C-alpha cells in the first residue's frame, strides 16, 4: 500500500516538475485580448454593463465555434474589462493599465469625456479603439485608429426631421446635458441642427454628473415654456430624476434622448406614467426582429436578465471580428484599414464605417438607426432612419 502511494507521489512530482518544459497549450498561446473600459457601477452602469456583456457574448459564441481564424491559426477571444465609473481619472487609469500592464492592443471605451482624456496614450501606443462615446473631434483624422461604433449626434439628429414632419405642434426646444465634453458637443450639434430646421432653442443648460437635485435648473428651463426637453448624452439615472422632478414642477411636454438610454431604468426612477411619450434612439423593446429576438434569448440565457441596450452596444465586437477576418492580421493598422472598407452585419442590418465628408475621415459607424417612443412603459420602435451621410 505504502509503495503504491509512493509511486503515485513520484508520478505526480514528475509531471509537476516536467510541466514547465511541456509545449504551451494552444489556448494559452493563441489568445486575442480585447480591453473594455466602461462604467460598471454608478449612474452610467446601465450603459457599461451591456457594453461589457455584449462584447463577451459575441466573443464566447465565436470561441465556441473554434475561435477567430487568421490563416490556418485559430484564436480565442478574451475580454479584459475594467470599471471606470464614468470618472475621467478612473478611465485614464484603466486604459493605461490595459495598454501597459495587460498588453492589450484593441480596446473599446465608453464615455466621451473619458475617451477624450485617453486620446494621447491611445494614439501613442497605436492601440485600436472602438469607443461608444460622444465628443467633439473624437472621429477625426488626428485619431486614425479610433472607430466610433455607435451613431453620434451628427447622425441621430436625423430624427428631428421626422419629428418636424409628424409633430409640427412642437416648436420650442430646451436642452439639458452633462457639463463635460460629451454634453457640450452633443448639444452644440443638436441645437445647430434643430435651429436649422426652424425650432426655437429656448434654453441650453448643463449639469454636473453627480447632480441629483435638478429643481433649480428645471425651474430655469420651465420658465421658458419649452414644448420638449432634450436630455441628450445624460445617463439613465439622471434622466429618471430630471423627468420625475420636471413632472412635479408641472411640465406636461415631451422628453427626447437621441443618444441612448434604457427607458426601463428611467421609468423605475421617474414612474411609468411620467415617461410616457418619451422618444429615444438606440433602445427598442418592441417589436423586435427575429435576429434580435434570438440575441435576446442568448443574452438572457447567459446573463439572466435582458438588457435592450446590448443590441446597439454589441457593435464594437461585431466590427472588430469582421475587420480581423477581412484583414487576416492582428496588426492594428491593417485592422484599421479593413474597418474602413468592411461591410458587416450588426443586429439592425448591414453596417459600415464612413462619414468622411462630415468628419474628414471615414471612421464613424453607419447603419439604419432605430428610434422609439415609450408607450405604456415600453419603448416601441417608431422608425428606422438612414444616416444623413455615407
Amino acid at each position, binding site marked *: 500500500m505504502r509503495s503504491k502511494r509512493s509511486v503515485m507521489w513520484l508520478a505526480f512530482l514528475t509531471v509537476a516538475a516536467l510541466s514547465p518544459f511541456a509545449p504551451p497549450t494552444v489556448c494559452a498561446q493563441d489568445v486575442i485580448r480585447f480591453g473594455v473600459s466602461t462604467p*460598471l*457601477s*454608478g*449612474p452610467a*452602469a*446601465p450603459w457599461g*454593463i451591456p457594453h461589457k456583456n455584449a462584447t463577451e457574448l459575441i466573443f464566447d459564441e465565436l470561441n465556441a465555434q473554434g475561435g477567430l481564424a487568421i490563416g490556418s491559426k485559430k484564436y480565442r477571444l478574451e475580454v479584459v474589462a475594467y470599471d471606470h465609473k464614468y470618472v475621467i481619472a478612473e478611465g485614464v487609469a484603466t486604459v493605461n493599465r490595459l495598454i501597459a500592464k495587460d498588453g492589450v492592443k484593441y480596446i473599446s471605451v465608453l464615455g466621451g469625456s473619458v475617451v477624450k482624456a485617453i486620446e494621447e496614450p491611445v494614439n501613442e501606443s497605436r492601440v485600436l479603439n472602438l469607443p461608444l462615446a460622444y465628443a467633439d473631434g473624437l472621429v477625426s483624422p488626428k485619431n486614425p485608429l479610433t472607430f466610433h461604433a455607435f451613431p453620434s449626434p451628427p447622425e441621430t439628429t436625423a430624427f428631428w426631421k421626422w419629428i418636424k414632419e409628424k409633430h409640427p405642434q412642437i416648436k420650442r426646444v430646451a436642452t439639458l446635458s452633462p*457639463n463635460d465634453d460629451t454634453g457640450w458637443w452633443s448639444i452644440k450639434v443638436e441645437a445647430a441642427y434643430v435651429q436649422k430646421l426652424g425650432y426655437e432653442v429656448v434654453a441650453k*443648460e*448643463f*449639469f*454636473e454628473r*453627480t*447632480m*441629483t*437635485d435638478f*429643481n*433649480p*435648473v428645471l*425651474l*430655469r428651463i420651465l*420658465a421658458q415654456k419649452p414644448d420638449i426637453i432634450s436630455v441628450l448624452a445624460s445617463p439613465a*439615472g439622471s434622466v*429618471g*430624476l430630471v423627468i420625475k*422632478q420636471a413632472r*412635479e*414642477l*408641472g411640465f406636461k411636454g415631451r422628453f427626447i434622448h437621441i443618444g441612448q438610454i434604457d427607458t426601463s*431604468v428611467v421609468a*423605475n*426612477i421617474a*414612474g411609468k406614467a411620467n415617461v410616457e411619450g418619451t422618444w429615444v434612439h438606440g433602445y427598442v423593446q418592441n417589436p423586435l426582429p427575429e435576429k434580435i429576438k434570438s440575441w435576446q434569448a442568448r443574452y438572457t440565457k447567459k446573463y439572466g436578465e435582458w438588457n435592450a441596450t446590448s443590441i446597439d452596444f454589441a457593435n464594437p465586437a461585431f466590427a472588430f471580428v469582421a475587420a480581423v477576418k477581412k484583414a487576416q492580421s492582428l496588426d492594428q493598422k491593417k485592422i484599421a484599414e479593413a474597418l474602413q472598407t468592411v461591410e458587416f452585419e450588426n443586429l439592425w442590418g448591414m453596417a459600415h464605417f464612413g462619414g468622411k465628408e462630415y468628419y474628414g475621415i471615414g471612421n464613424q459607424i453607419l447603419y439604419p438607426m432605430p428610434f422609439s417612443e415609450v408607450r405604456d412603459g415600453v419603448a416601441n420602435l417608431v422608425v428606422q432612419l438612414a444616416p444623413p451621410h455615407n
Partner: protein
Amino acid sequence: MTAALLLQSAIIGISIGSIYILMALGLTLMFGMMHIINFAHGAVYMLGAFVIYYVFFQGGAPYFAALVLAMVLLGAFGYLVERSVYRPIKGGIEPTLVALLALTTFLQAAGYPVFGQLDKHVPPVFAGTRNILGVMISVERLMIIPVAAVLVVGLYLFINRTRLGAAMRAIEQDKEAAALQGVNVHVVNGLAFAIGFALAAAAGALMAPIFKLDPMMGEQPLLKAFIIIILGGLGSIPGAILGGLMLGLIDSIVATALGAEPAFLLSFVFIIGLLLFRPSGLFGHA
C-alpha cells in the same frame, strides 16, 4: 425672475436646506465635543437611505417606522464606532480622522457588492404636488421641512433640557472639568456619536424617495455639510441651522436665477467673503 419663480425656488431651497441642516448638526455636534470631523457622515447618510430601500420599499414596513429604524440602527452603529474606533485611539484627532476616512471608504466600496451596481430607487411616500400661491411644489419635498424641524427641535430640547444634554454642553466647554464633576465622558461621547450618526441616517432616509440611491450618494451632502459648519461656526448648533438654510437658499435661488455652476461658485465666494470678516463663522468662537 418673477415673484412666483422666486417663491418656488425659495420653498425648494428651504426643503433642501433642511436636509443640509440634519447633516451639519451631527457633524457640528461631534466637532464641538470631540474636535473631530466625521468623514463617515456621508456613508451613514447613504446607509440611512438604503435602510429605507430594504425596510420600506422591499420589506413593506411603514415609511416612518423605517425612518426610526434607520436612526436607531445607525445610531447604535455610531455608538459602536465610538467604542471601537475613537475610544481605543484615545481621541487623538489625526488618527481618528484617518480611521473615519478609512471607514467611509470601506462602507462605500462595500456598497457596490452588497447593494448592487445599478442605482436603486424608492417609490414616492407622499406622491403628488401642491399648488402654493400659484406655484407647484412636490409634497415629498414639503414633508422634509416639518420632519427635519421636529428632529432639530428634539435635539435642541435634548441638549438644553436634559441632564445628558447638560453633560454634552459641559464636555464641549471643558472636558477635564466635566470629568472632575462626575460626567462619564466616554458614555457621553458615545451618545454624541450615536446622535450624529442618527441625524445623518435621518437625512438619508428623508432623501431616499426623492433621489436615487447609490453607494456614493453621501459625498455631495457631506461636502455641503462641511461648508455649512464652516459658515455657521465649528461646533455651533444655531450656526449649523442658519448656515444650512442659507446654503439651501443660495443653491436653489441662485441656481434658478443664474444656473447651477454660478450657484456652486457663489456659495464658495460667499463663504470666503464671510470668513474674511468673521474667521470663526457666523456663530463660532474665536
